[in-house]
């Protein structure tokens, strides 16, 4: 790698300034606000504020509702990550083969990424709305008592599908780029070396895709923890009976709707710490097994 050395300090500072400013204004500032406010309790009308140290956290960890949100988040995030990464990889492998109309498929597979999360949510909501939804009718036709409005499990399946569908495009794009950067002669060499398609995939293609897969894993974890808020808000509002209330949705519910700013901020801090920890773990343990 070539090193470029700037003369003076003004130009380099100016060059990195926009990035720094954005990070400070949209991350460090609100994050530090959240940390500060998580130590405070406000009354319902916002007239008095009291510094309570860790009381907000203590209350949270005694609240069974919070553990419920953790469980929901775990199920939701694992399912979405596995589904969106797995399906995207499968689609990318298929699209990488030289077939007629590959360009068309690729374009169509890209489109869902351009759809806003809330709109994606509404789309799935309509399709699976028990009394109106096209696909819900089909499911009912098969004798399945499909009702995400009442059945928590159905609601969970619905948000998982919507969130995964939305993310597949993004993952697909990166996997396809990764696949296309693998020299064709490597695959041919493996074919001559006696490896069948399946073995070629697992011993040659997948290891070479691992930097891409690792990057996507990190991005997807962040996505399911934060960006899926819009989908859940549009499709289920965390219901029925909090069956789809993820941690990020609970932050919103308790803070914006419940008026418990301190408790909500404490949840934000925990969520933030969790994502930082998960990313750190991924870098520490998984990255070692990644071949760059």
């Amino acid at each position: 790698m070539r090193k470029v050395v700037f003369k003076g300090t003004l130009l380099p500072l100016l060059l990195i300034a926009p990035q720094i400013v954005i990070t400070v204004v949209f991350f460090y500032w609100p994050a530090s606000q959240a940390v500060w406010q998580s130590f405070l309790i406000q009354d319902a009308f916002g007239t008095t504020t009291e510094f309570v140290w860790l009381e907000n956290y203590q209350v949270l960890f005694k609240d069974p509702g919070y553990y419920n949100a953790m469980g929901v988040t775990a199920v939701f995030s694992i399912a979405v990550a596995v589904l969106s990464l797995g399906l995207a990889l499968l689609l990318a492998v298929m699209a990488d083969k030289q077939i007629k109309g590959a360009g068309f498929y690729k374009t169509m597979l890209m489109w869902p990424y351009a759809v806003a999360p809330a709109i994606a949510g509404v789309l799935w909501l309509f399709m699976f709305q028990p009394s109106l939804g096209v696909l819900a009718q089909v499911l009912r036709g098969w004798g399945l008592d499909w009702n995400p409005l009442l059945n928590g499990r159905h609601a969970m399946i619905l948000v998982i599908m919507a969130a995964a569908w939305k993310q597949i495009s993004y993952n697909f794009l990166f996997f396809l780029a990764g696949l296309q950067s693998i020299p064709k002669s490597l695959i041919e060499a493996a074919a001559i070396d006696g490896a069948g398609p399946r073995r070629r995939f697992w011993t040659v293609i997948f290891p070479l895709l691992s930097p891409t897969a690792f990057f996507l894993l990190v991005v997807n974890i962040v996505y399911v923890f934060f960006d899926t808020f819009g989908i859940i808000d549009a499709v289920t509002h965390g219901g029925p009976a909090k069956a789809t209330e993820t941690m990020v949705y609970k932050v919103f519910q308790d803070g914006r709707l419940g008026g418990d700013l301190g408790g909500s901020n404490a949840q934000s801090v925990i969520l933030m710490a969790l994502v930082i920890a998960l990313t750190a773990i991924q870098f520490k343990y998984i990255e070692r097994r990644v071949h760059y």
Partner: protein
Amino acid sequence: MAEVELRAVRKSFGATKVIHGVDIKIADGELVVIVGPSGCGKSTLLRMVAGLETVSEGTIAIDGMPVNDREPKDRDIAMVFQNYALYPHMSVYDNMAYGLRNRGMDKAEIDRRVREAAKTLELAHLLERKPRQLSGGQRQRVAMGRAIVREPKAFLFDEPLSNLDAKLRVQMRVEIKKLQRQLGVTSLYVTHDQVEAMTLADRLIVMNAGVAEQIGTPMELYARPATTFVGGFIGSPAMNFFPARAANGRVELGGGIVLAMSNATAAGEVTVGIRPEHLTLGGADGVSLPIKVELIEHLGAEALVYGHLPGGAALTARIDGETDVALDAQLTLSVEPRHIHLFDKTSGRRVD
């Protein structure tokens, strides 16, 4: 080890025909080089033998068995690629062992073969390295090693030296030749470099635009090129060509130059081919070529003289490096009649 036979092999991509019927029987242990300019179909031909391209028409047989419909892995061949195609995430050892593991070979036997190949190729101290930690020449040797350990029926080489610098290329060329002799494995080798082709080959296939122009030993091709293309491609600097008229054992070059070729039977419009190294200084009866020296390149042992004949045709001559020749001087060159090649003007085929 085995014979490899191509019978009327053709290839087309859709309506585009890229190989128009190649026939050759490669004997056990023979090294055959396919040489030609880029786009002549030489790599496609090799890839068809490997099973990486389908055969449109004709038969490819290895060890007497047609293999047209066999997968690459079932043909028992090993291939060395131009970019080496080493698995970047595997060590040198694993790169060589991969093909053997895929075939479910016994671990001890794999280890024995890999270590033996590593010893032959002087890679023993590099077995734990990853390909990116190796130099170009070392990568090339690993690619060779991966082919050797398989002990296949045939080696296929697809321009294996073209990514190396000039010095290393000469060195590896010698190593490949020695190794191939030592192992005695039937080999098919593709290159665009005629020097590489001449030095390595037991027999050469010169390809042009999907046609095998001539098949033979390097010296046969040099001495009796079947077409103007082969004449121009084999040998460096390239053969001189002049348009001429032939009749009654005489060849008229225009500009008043007449070459006497008493045993030539050709008549009509022809192309005359004379190699630069067959031109000598000084006139001789009936075979003199006067030129004005326009450029001289001194290469040390020899010098290349460029000029034009009175008729306007460009000519290159290779003369002794110590001969004193001045720029703009008038020279008379001569050539022995046996070194004059005649080709049909339209078809480019040799006529005698």
